[in-house]
C-alpha cells in the first residue's frame, strides 16, 4: 500500500473544481510568462511591457530571443508532463515516465549517431539535423517497443516496461560506444546536448514543436475519461466498452510525438514527466480529466521557471536546464520512493 492510498479520505471533491483550478493554473502560467519575458541581460520593465513602450532594442530582444525561448520551454514542459501522466495511466504505475520506456535514450542515440558519424556540421543546418534525428530516434524507439508488445499480443504493461528497459540499456551502450569513438569536439557537443537546453530556441523550432505537441496534447486530454477506465485493467476496460488496444496505441503514438518533439528541440530534460503529475495527483487526485490538463499547465509553468533560473543564475553564462530539473527532480523522486515504498519494505 503506498502513500497515496494511505490517505483515507481525499480532502476535496475535486472534479467539480475542474474549471476554476485550470483557470487558476492558466492565469499563473500567463503571469509567469510575462514576468519571465522581462527578466534577462537587457532589462525590460514590466510597466514598459504592459504599456507597449519598448525601445527597438528591447523589442528585438523580446521578439527574436526571449519570446521564442519562453514559448518553447512552455510547450516542452507541457509535452513532457502530459506524456508522463499518460504513461502512468497506460502502465498503471505511478512511477512510469517517458524516459523509462526508452524514448529519450533512443532519441539520444540518434543524435549521437549524427554528431559522431555525419562529420562536422555547422550553423542552422546542424541544429535542424540534430532535432530531426532526435525526433526520428524517439519515434523509432516507440515503434520498436510497440512492435515487440504487438508480437506478444497482450500489450501487457510489464512486458512493455521490460522491453523499454532492454532498449534503454542497448541504446545507452551504443551511445557510450559512439562517445568512445568521438573526438573531443564531438564529445563536447554530445555531452551538452544530453544536458538539455533552450539556448538555441528560434521561431521555426517553436512552430514545429507547437504543431506536433498541441494536437497530441489535445487528443490525450480528450481520451482522459477512457484512460481512467483503463486504470482498472485491460479486460475491465473492454467490459466497460473501452477499446483498450486502440486506446493504448493512441496514447503510445501521442506520447512518442510529444516526447520526440520535446527532445528534438531541447535535448533531454529529465523528471518533469514524473514530478509534475505526482504533484497534481497528491493535491487534486488521480482523475485524468483534471490530471492531464493540469499537468500540462503546471509542467509548462515549472519548465519556464526552471529555464529562467538556468539562464540567469550564472549570467552571462548559462546552466543547462536539464541539469537543473534533474538536480531538483532526483531528490524528489527518491523522497517519493521512500515515502511510497518505505512502509512496505519496513524502512
Amino acid at each position, binding site marked *: *500500500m*503506498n502513500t*497515496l*492510498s*494511505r*490517505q*483515507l*479520505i*481525499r480532502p476535496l471533491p475535486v*472534479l*467539480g473544481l*475542474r474549471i476554476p483550478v485550470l483557470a487558476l493554473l492558466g492565469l499563473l502560467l500567463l503571469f509567469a510568462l510575462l514576468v519571465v519575458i522581462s527578466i534577462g541581460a537587457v532589462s525590460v520593465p514590466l510597466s514598459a511591457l504592459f504599456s507597449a513602450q519598448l525601445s527597438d532594442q528591447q523589442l528585438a530582444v523580446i521578439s527574436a530571443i526571449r519570446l521564442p525561448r519562453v514559448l518553447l520551454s512552455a510547450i516542452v514542459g507541457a509535452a513532457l508532463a502530459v506524456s508522463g501522466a499518460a504513461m502512468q495511466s497506460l502502465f*498503471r*504505475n*505511478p512511477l512510469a515516465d517517458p524516459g523509462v520506456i526508452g524514448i529519450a535514450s533512443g532519441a539520444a542515440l540518434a543524435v549521437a549517431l549524427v554528431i559522431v558519424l555525419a562529420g562536422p556540421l555547422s550553423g542552422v543546418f546542424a541544429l535542424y539535423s540534430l532535432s530531426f534525428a532526435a525526433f526520428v530516434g524517439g519515434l523509432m524507439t516507440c515503434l520498436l517497443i510497440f512492435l515487440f508488445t504487438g508480437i506478444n499480443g497482450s500489450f501487457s504493461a510489464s512486458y512493455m516496461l521490460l522491453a523499454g528497459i532492454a532498449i534503454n540499456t542497448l541504446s545507452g551502450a551504443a551511445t557510450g560506444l559512439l562517445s568512445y569513438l568521438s573526438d573531443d569536439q564531438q564529445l563536447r557537443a554530445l555531452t551538452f546536448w544530453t544536458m538539455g537546453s533552450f539556448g538555441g530556441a528560434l521561431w521555426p523550432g517553436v512552430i514545429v514543436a507547437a504543431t506536433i505537441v498541441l494536437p497530441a496534447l489535445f487528443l490525450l486530454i480528450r481520451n482522459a*475519461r*477512457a484512460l*481512467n*477506465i483503463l*486504470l*482498472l*485493467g485491460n*479486460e*475491465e476496460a*473492454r*467490459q*466497460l*466498452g*473501452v*477499446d483498450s488496444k486502440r486506446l493504448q496505441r493512441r496514447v503510445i503514438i501521442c506520447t512518442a510525438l510529444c516526447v520526440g518533439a520535446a527532445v528534438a528541440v531541447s535535448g533531454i530534460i529529465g523528471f518533469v514527466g514524473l514530478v509534475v503529475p505526482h504533484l497534481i*495527483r497528491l493535491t487534486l*487526485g*488521480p*482523475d485524468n*480529466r483534471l490530471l492531464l490538463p493540469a499537468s500540462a499547465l503546471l509542467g509548462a509553468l515549472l519548465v519556464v521557471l526552471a529555464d529562467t533560473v538556468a539562464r540567469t543564475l550564472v549570467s552571462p553564462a548559462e546552466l543547462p536546464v536539464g541539469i537543473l530539473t534533474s538536480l531538483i527532480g532526483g531528490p524528489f523522486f527518491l523522497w517519493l520512493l521512500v515515502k511510497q515504498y518505505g512502509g512496505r519494505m519496513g524502512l
Partner: protein
Amino acid sequence: MITAKHIAYGVGDTQILDDVCVSLKPGTVTAILGPNGAGKSSLLKCLSGTLSPCRGDIYFNGVNLQGYPLEDLSRRRGVLSQSIALHFPFTVFELVMMGRYPYIDSPASQDDKQVVQWALESVDAWSLKDRVFPSLSGGEQQRVQLARVLGQIWAQQQACLFLDEPTAALDLKYQHQIFQLIGQLADDYALTVCVILHDPQLARRYCDQAILMQQGQVFAAGSTARVLAPENIECVYEVPPDWIGGWVPL
C-alpha cells in the same frame, strides 16, 4: 439469455475448455462449481466475451457474441473479475461512477449519481463513498467493485451479470446478503446471472441452476439440487463423503 455451443479454449498446447455446451436463462442464477483448474474462470470469461473461444459459438440474446458491438455489450453485461488491482487513489464514489462509463458524458449527471448511490447502498457500502479505494479492506474492496458492476447494468432489462467468486473475501453475513441481493435483482430485472463459487451450501441455497466442471468439461448441469448431489461432489472433488454437507462436529 446466453447459449454456448461446443466451445473450446486453450493457451498454447494446454486445452482449458473442451466442447462445452451451456445455456443460461434470464431470471435465473447459475452457479459454476468445480475443482481448482477445472476451467471455471475461463468458461466465465468466454461466456462474458472477455476471452474468445478457439472453437464454437456463443449467443447473447440470440446474437453471436463475436460480432456484438463493444458499446452495446457494455450496457448489457457486467463482469466482476476475481481481483482488480488499482494503485491510484480514486475515491469509492469515483470508482463506482466508472461503472457508468457506458452511459454518461462528463460531468456526471444527476441520474448517474443516483445510480451510484443505489448501487453502493445495495452492497451496504454507501458509508465508504469518500474513502480512498486502495485503503479499503479486501472485503470492502470486493463489495465496492460489485457495486461498480451493478451500477453498470442498473435497471437494464435482459442484462447479464458475471461474477467470479464475488463472496471470496466476504464475511458470513455479507456472503448471504450479497446472494440475496443477486437473487432479488435476477427476479426483478430478468437478469441472467452466472456466478463462480466454491461453497456448495451457498449454491444450493441461492442458485437455481448449477454447472459442475471437471477438467475443462461439464460434468453435470441442471437444477442445483440434482447437480450438487453428494455423489457428484464426491466424484468431482475426490473427497470423502463426510467432508460434504456442512458442519463436521469436532
